[in-house]
């Protein structure tokens, strides 16, 4: 399973519409994700992957593509 598909699953779990989501999709403006939901997204990603997600880092991300790249390069929890 790719990082992209995992993250799309996370968004759907949080009842965020994922139709047409691509690398350029903006988290806040297009998906209307706010800081509280980003906290949930960070926790949900950690539940589905081995990545350690820093909440402050994730708040600074702009697009879905940024999120995919961040998760791909995030250190593993250990």
């Amino acid at each position, binding site marked *: 399973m790719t990082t992209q598909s995992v993250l799309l699953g996370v968004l759907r779990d949080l009842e965020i519409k994922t139709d047409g989501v691509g690398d350029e999709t903006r988290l806040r403006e297009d998906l209307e994700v706010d800081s*509280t939901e980003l*906290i*949930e997204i*960070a*926790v949900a990603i*950690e539940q589905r992957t081995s990545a350690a997600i820093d*909440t402050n880092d994730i*708040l*600074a991300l702009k697009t879905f593509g940024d999120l995919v790249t961040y998760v791909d390069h995030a250190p593993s929890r250990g």
Partner: protein
Amino acid sequence: MSALDGLSPVLSVGVDIVDAERLRRMVTRWGDLVLERLFTADERNRLYGARGLRWDSLAGRFAAKEATRKTFGARGEMPRWTDLQVDVGPHGEPRLTLLGAAVEAAQRCGFRQFHVSIAHEKKSAMAIVVAL
């Protein structure tokens, strides 16, 4: 001599309103996984009362932290939630304690003092923070 001489200037103001029900749903779903990202160990201990989590206190503290982050954000800083601790003063008033990297961030911003006020309603909490 002006009457304003000697008074600290307001350097930044932050305000935030929190949907308490939404926060409650999130914490109910994720439990400590969320609480540990938002609150210090001291705060988490104080958030539990005789009937479990004190939801109004949780929402108010989170609003205060978000409002504080906005005072920093206006100066290009963004401390972690767990580097901002909302304590209770001797008169029951909320007090902000800076921890970790937030201490240096405040120095860079020129902040020496914070005043915090929190208000609760059934479905929401709001906070205003003034940085001097």
